[in-house]
């Protein structure tokens, strides 16, 4: 218990400070007085007695100091003193303090913001139990990688795998909401019975699927999302176990998922899936199409590497369904789910993270510079303090305390800046980041910010301390504080050079990313989005669709109407499979994949796609007549290189066995259309095949081409749909331009953020140049005065100061250029239509850097020319 008592005593002395001080004073005084009395009693005169007493006692102040040291709070006292002194001296130079704090706030704030995003997307585990043991398993054959797997493949993998204790599959498609009420289109997940338990520990209500649900005569079981349960069924717990209307029949709701449950899969797969039902897994159809995203759960003790080598072995054992040809070209790729989820954004984020690190370095260099300049200005003060007996350690502590104060205030402001910047980033983020919807500055971020602030403080604390270290006290005092020592100035110039070099690299990257964005803006997507509005409806009958097409076509302002199963640049519920020409070998039958689109006549003219050859579909391209298809030029070229595709036969028999069956075995090619960018503006992912809606009915999006803006179009179209079928859901009324904007958003995001970082970097570098030159001009006032007094013209003075500033810029340009040569190739994956070594880019940004440097140097240079020689000389 001793230590509690001691702590109590210490705290008493800490908080009763002034009283304790007074008491000490009294105690010492008592001692001296007592000694005097004793001396007088021994026969001394009053004067003599006092002197002797004082002499015996020694240095009263020192005794008091030593006693105080025994209280054990000296370090704190000094720290408080240092902080107080620091605050006072910062208040005395508000300009310096403001610039330093803003510099730090921008540097640290930008870091906090980017780190928040990096943390949410790359570092925080996915919101699933055992998230770090989840793998995605892609199937690949021929030139196709990262493809979905067939039920047969899943069955075979499950039979053999020992590294995974669970492998489940999901396919997300469009469907309607179960229950009574307004029909509404939602995302539906077709899953294997074991899929949901892999991603979710427990349903909020009821149960997940089991083997009985897959039995041939079982009632159709569905699991619904928490949102649907609340919105559609009024959060009624009794709904579990009940049969509700679903599609054209009914289904039993067996369970409700927990609130906030999302499906986070790679690619732009929708994450807000509202209804799930299970599909059986068996080996009944070895030649069946791939359609399942496979998610595996590693058994305890296994690793992704072991799972991959096992998968390699398994891949050679399956896919031998064709007795004659024994195809075994199957490849299986096992990837950590989280890493694969962030595959597309990882590079961008890491680059931005690197860029923002550069900004922080520049900010630190800037503050170091400001402090260096300031310490040189304060040389006299420091020297006087040293001459009065302050130890070097004490001086350094004093400076560190001041820096700590700056860094802390800077970090506090930075949190505000970071918060706003995070909001701004969220507002511009591309859809690939939207699934990570909880990007908030959290404790990790706070810790990170503080760590950065402290590191920065330690870093820029170094510069002035070097300056103190090498100062000769007497010399400095003689100079009256106008130190002309070259060392600190060289440091300053060096720091500015570093800032320019780092800023150059950021600008170079930004230039490339912006050029990429501009190029993407000018990409021809293969369709014309202007004045086309789209909306989705659930699976209609052809007759109704045909009727709707006619009704909408006559609305005022409408030029043409058609429908397509999958809008370009909309990833949701995509449909793709293998298609092969007549006479293809078994291997060839599995090597060409294409996106499948089901359309109404007039689709191409409505969205402005170019029909290169042949004809569009007509109303008579139905089941009863010859089955036809239109290919895009990429598929036609791939199947029949250097041959006429028109009139050739194509097999399209392999559609999944789902609610929308499509089993028209052979079709004849009647047209070739120019490729439409369906997944990305920059990459051709897959070619396309178009078939008439009548051969492949499924949920469609209506596309309406208008002459200019038609204000009430959405309402009128909705009314028309309601007139034809009041149970039909209309959703996603979106102009096609919106999808185009979304497709550009990733590049826009990257280039905007890079531009913001580069702007901050440039601004900071400007402050750096300006600060150093202003200081230098102030230092050389006398010298410049002499020069002017003996006849130097103004332009010479101007040139001299500008020259000094531009020397750092020139060196910085060279450094930045060399650094860029090394770093720019890292951007290669993000660029489009421009190469990392682009010359125009380098020339342009060199121009920007020089221009901005001249601007920053001009003000101090002009001020130098305004120096009055008389005043300057007197100043000496």
């Amino acid at each position, binding site marked *: 218990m001793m230590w509690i*008592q001691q702590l109590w005593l210490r705290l008493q002395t800490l908080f009763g400070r002034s009283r304790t001080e007074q008491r*000490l004073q*009294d*105690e010492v005084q*008592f*001692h001296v007085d*007592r000694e005097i009395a004793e001396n007088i009693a021994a026969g001394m005169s009053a004067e003599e007695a006092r002197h002797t007493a004082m002499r015996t006692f020694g240095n009263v102040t020192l005794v008091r100091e*030593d006693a*105080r040291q*025994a209280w054990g709070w000296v370090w704190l006292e000094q720290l408080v003193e240092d902080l107080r002194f620091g605050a006072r001296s910062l208040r005395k130079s508000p300009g310096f303090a403001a610039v330093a704090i803003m510099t730090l706030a921008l540097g640290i704030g930008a870091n906090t913001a980017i780190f928040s995003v990096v943390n949410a997307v790359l570092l925080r585990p996915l919101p699933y139990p055992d998230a770090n043991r989840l793998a995605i398993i892609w199937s690949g054959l021929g030139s196709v990688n990262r493809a979905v797997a067939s039920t047969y493949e899943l069955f075979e993998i499950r039979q053999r795998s020992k590294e995974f204790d669970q492998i489940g599959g999901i396919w997300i498609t469009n469907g309607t909401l179960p229950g009574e009420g307004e029909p509404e289109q939602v995302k539906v997940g077709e899953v294997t019975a074991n899929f949901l338990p892999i991603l979710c520990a427990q349903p909020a209500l009821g149960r997940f699927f089991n083997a009985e649900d897959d039995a041939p005569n079982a009632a159709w079981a569905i699991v619904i999302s928490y949102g649907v349960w609340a919105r559609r069924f009024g959060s009624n717990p009794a709904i579990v176990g009940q049969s509700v209307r679903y599609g054209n029949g009914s289904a039993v709701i067996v369970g409700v998922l927990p609130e906030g449950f999302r499906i986070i899969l790679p690619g732009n797969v929708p994450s807000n899936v509202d209804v799930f039902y299970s599909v059986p897994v068996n080996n009944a159809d070895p030649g069946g199409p791939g359609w399942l995203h496979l998610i595996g759960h590693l058994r305890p003790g296994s690793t992704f590497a072991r799972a991959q080598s096992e998968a390699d072995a398994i891949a050679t054992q399956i896919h031998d369904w064709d007795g004659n040809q024994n195809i075994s070209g199957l490849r299986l790729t096992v990837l950590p789910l989280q890493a694969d989820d962030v595959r597309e954004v990882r590079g961008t984020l890491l680059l931005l993270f690197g860029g923002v690190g550069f900004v922080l370095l520049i900010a630190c260099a800037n503050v170091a510079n400001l402090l260096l300049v300031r310490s040189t200005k304060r040389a006299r003060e420091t020297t006087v303090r040293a001459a009065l007996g302050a130890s070097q350690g004490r001086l350094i502590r004093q400076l560190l305390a001041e820096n700590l104060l700056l860094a802390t205030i800077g970090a506090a402001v930075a949190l505000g800046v970071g918060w706003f910047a995070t909001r701004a980033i969220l507002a511009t983020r591309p859809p690939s980041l939207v699934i990570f919807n909880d990007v908030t500055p959290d404790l990790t971020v706070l810790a990170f910010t503080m760590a950065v602030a402290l590191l920065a403080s330690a870093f820029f604390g170094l510069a002035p301390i070097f300056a103190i270290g090498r100062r000769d006290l007497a010399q400095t005092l003689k100079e009256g504080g106008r130190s002309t020592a070259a060392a600190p100035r060289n440091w300053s110039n060096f720091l500015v050079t570093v800032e320019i070099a780092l800023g150059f690299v950021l600008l170079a990257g930004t230039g490339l990313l912006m050029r990429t964005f501009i190029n993407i803006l000018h990409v021809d997507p293969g369709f014309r989005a202007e004045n086309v509005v789209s909306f989705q409806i659930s699976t209609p009958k052809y007759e109704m669709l045909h009727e709707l097409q006619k009704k909408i076509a006559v609305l005022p302002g409408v030029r043409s109407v058609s429908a397509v199963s999958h809008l370009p640049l909309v990833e949701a519920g995509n449909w793709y499979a293998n298609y092969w020409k007549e006479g293809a070998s078994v291997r060839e039958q599995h090597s060409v994949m294409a996106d499948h689109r089901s359309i109404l006549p007039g689709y191409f003219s409505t969205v402005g796609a170019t029909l290169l050859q042949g004809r569009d579909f007509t109303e008579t391209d139905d089941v009863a007549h010859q089955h036809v298809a239109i290919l895009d030029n990429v598929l036609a070229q791939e199947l029949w290189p250097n041959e006429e595709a028109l009139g050739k036969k194509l097999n399209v028999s392999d559609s999944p066995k789902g609610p929308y069956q499509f089993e028209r075995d052979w079709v004849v090619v009647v047209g070739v259309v120019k490729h439409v960018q369906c997944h990305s503006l920059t990459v051709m992912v897959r070619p396309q095949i178009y078939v008439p809606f009548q051969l492949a009915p499924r949920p469609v999006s209506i596309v309406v081409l208008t002459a200019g803006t038609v204000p009430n179009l959405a309402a009128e179209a909705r009314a028309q749909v309601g007139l034809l079928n009041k149970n039909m859901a209309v959703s996603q009324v979106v102009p096609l331009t919106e999808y185009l904007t979304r497709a550009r958003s990733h590049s826009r995001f990257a280039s905007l953020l890079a531009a913001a970082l580069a702007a901050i970097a440039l601004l900071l570098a400007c402050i750096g140049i300006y600060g150093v030159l202003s200081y230098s001009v102030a230092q050389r006032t006398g010298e410049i005065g002499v020069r002017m007094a003996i006849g130097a013209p103004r332009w010479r003075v101007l040139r001299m100061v500008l020259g000094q500033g531009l020397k750092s810029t020139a060196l910085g340009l060279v450094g930045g250029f060399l650094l860029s040569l090394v770093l720019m190739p890292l951007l290669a994956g993000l660029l489009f239509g421009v190469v990392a070594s682009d010359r125009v880019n380098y020339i342009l940004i060199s121009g920007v850097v020089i221009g901005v440097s001249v601007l920053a140097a001009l003000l101090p240079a002009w001020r130098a020319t305004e120096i009055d020689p008389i005043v300057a000389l007197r100043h000496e």
Partner: protein
Amino acid sequence: MGKPNDLVQGTLDLLILKTISLEPKHGWAIAKRIQQISGEVLQVQQGSLYPALHRLEQRAWIKAKWAESETGRQAKFYSLTAAGRTQLEKEAANWSRLSAAIDLVVETS
């Protein structure tokens, strides 16, 4: 000013603890008492006395109380705490052992 070395410091602590073990004393009286008892051999530097007193107080070996002194003025009287008494015994024993050992060495050689 450097700190007193361990031997001196430890010894001064012992002397202070011993001096106030019988009755509470103020600083001046402690110094005088040590001087007197040691036959004027040990001169206590005030420069070390007060820091030592405050240090011992912080360690809770001694406690202080302001009371009227022999001259009628208020003075700070130091007295031993229970922990201080234990410490005194420990240090006294230590000292006896040490001085006996030094005696042995000095006398034998």
